[in-house]
């Protein structure tokens, strides 16, 4: 289809031709800027609400800047043990899940990047992994299986089912194939085995690709909420997104103590929810500059190769 893109092209800002300013250009730029605003203003509004006083928020005075600036809703959220519990679950999930994802991706991608004659049953293996992307048993069998394994209410239920990210495997194996054969042959002549070759040659060369995949995996783990909701019977084991889901979307306040309810009366429901929404997206927003840079490369790497 096309040549693989060079990093320079992947930057997507290369200008090919001289462009002149005219009416249409101005109109175009204005339109695009308006659409950009449409993408970020909702978030800014929520942040403004979260920092506003409960009265101003309930009365609908808040637009894009906090009214009667206060940390009250954040103080309240941070004072909740549930919040910290779920934050710890989320961090543990990322801490175990991401290295596990990367390790398995490397271990699967390396053999599959070999030619068929260098690895018997290569295509059988490849299909075995690929089929899991095409077909699954569905919700109930999945849930029942995890229950049978006794994984409910354990952190392993959140990291093991997705331990092999097949899409990442596909990206990495295609990346591995671009690595010059001579490097590997030289390693073999020097007496390195396959494990040594992976660890000392392939992994260091693939650092940018691996960083992309690590970010994919971290975002995935951070944003997942349904498995937490489904597989954790005890709300104390919810990851942060599942916790936010029950509070903000389901408005389930049943597991709150009486004192907590009284505290809540002082803060409006709206500022509270807004602060939780913001806290739930904060790590992503902080990591965004890195995310964007790597993801653009990752997407280009993954989607339009031919």
């Amino acid at each position, binding site marked *: *289809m*096309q*040549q693989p893109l060079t990093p320079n092209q*992947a930057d*997507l800002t290369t200008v*090919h031709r001289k462009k002149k300013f005219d009416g249409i*250009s101005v109109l*175009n*730029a204005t*339109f695009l*800027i308006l*659409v*950009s605003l*449409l*993408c*970020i203003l*909702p*978030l800014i*509004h*929520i942040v403004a609400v979260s920092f506003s006083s409960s009265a101003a928020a309930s009365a*609908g005075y808040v637009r894009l800047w906090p009214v009667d600036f206060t940390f009250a809703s954040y103080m309240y959220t941070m004072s909740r043990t549930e919040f910290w519990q779920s934050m710890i679950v989320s961090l543990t999930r990322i801490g175990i899940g991401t290295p596990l994802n990367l390790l*398995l991706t490397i271990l699967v991608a*390396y*053999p*599959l990047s070999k030619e068929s004659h*260098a*690895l018997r049953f290569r295509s059988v293996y490849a299909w*075995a992994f*690929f089929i*899991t992307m095409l077909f699954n*048993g*569905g*919700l*109930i*069998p*999945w*849930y*029942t*299986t995890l229950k049978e*394994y006794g994984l409910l209410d354990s952190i392993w239920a959140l990291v*093991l089912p997705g*331990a092999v990210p097949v899409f990442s495997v596909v990206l990495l*194996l295609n990346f591995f194939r671009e690595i010059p054969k001579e490097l590997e042959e030289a390693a073999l002549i020097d007496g390195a*085995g396959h*494990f040594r070759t992976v660890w000392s040659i392939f992994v260091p060369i693939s650092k940018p690709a691996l960083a992309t995949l690590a970010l994919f995996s971290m975002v995935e783990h951070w*944003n*997942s909420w349904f498995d937490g909701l489904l597989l954790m019977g005890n709300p104390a084991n919810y990851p942060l*997104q599942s916790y*936010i*889901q029950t509070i*903000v979307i389901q408005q389930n306040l049943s597991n709150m103590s009486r004192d907590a309810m009284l505290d809540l009366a002082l803060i409006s429901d709206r500022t509270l929810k*807004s602060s939780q*929404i913001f806290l739930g*997206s904060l790590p992503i927003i902080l990591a965004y500059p890195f995310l*964007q840079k790597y993801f*653009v490369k990752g*997407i*280009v790497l993954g989607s*339009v190769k*031919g």
Partner: protein
Amino acid sequence: MRSKLRKELPLHLMLLPGLIMIILFSYVPMAGVMIAFQKFIPAKGLFGDQKWVGFDNFDYVMSLPNFTQVLWNTLFISSLKLILGLIVPLVFAILLNELASNVIKRTVQTAIYLPYFLSWVVLGGILIDILSPSGGIVNEFLGLFGVSKIFFLGDNDWFPFTLIASDVWKNFGYGTIVYLAAITGIDPGLYEAATIDGANRWHKTWHITIPGIRMVIVLLSVLSLGQLLNAGFDQVFNLYSPQVYESGDILDTFVYRIGLLDAQYGVATAVGFFKSIISLTLISSSYFLAYRFAKYRIF
């Protein structure tokens, strides 16, 4: 022969942990689709002595009055999402490519790409707040133009379109990057030649840019076909409520409710199985078509 096997052995060993994981967490659940043909009692276990009922669960689902509605909702919502999800990013990529200023270009890219990274829980929370008929900022804004309040998430006329619009809003940044990457791959010489021949902006877009990324357009369209029965569980689950089940209930949320809330395991698995089979057929055909028309190979 012996030594070849010994040389290969480490490769097989490397695959072992990954294989064990997918067998445990993908293939065992696939075997679990047999629940669809059972009157499943969880206490007896997945491989326990369950009562087999043939196609009773499927017959039961077909007889449900809202099943047709759910199927229709799924197809309606997902096909509109697919079509707009292909066209909107294409238009944006072309418009972005026309921008002369790299600063604006970069800023716009950064902004339109942000919602893609946020979870549907976070975006659901935001949408519920800003779209609310009581004090939501969108309705207030529309009020300035004399538009009466719209209950975007609670009105069956509006709900499916709110789903479609917000899905496009979340995802078009991603698609734009893909198209933009493809546009950047077009030989600049073509544009120069066209300029010398007196082509204007429209000529160039129409005769160079679009044909230049034709393969990517074909590829993305074909591959998206496989998603026809996925109308977006994460999104619908976080935005819907009983009063919009009529227009917004999709196969996945339907399975969730009959399966896990009503504990009708067999019935829910039957619906899931039906969905998986059709999806598998669609995805396989779309990969086949992608290979035929765009020479796309996954590995």
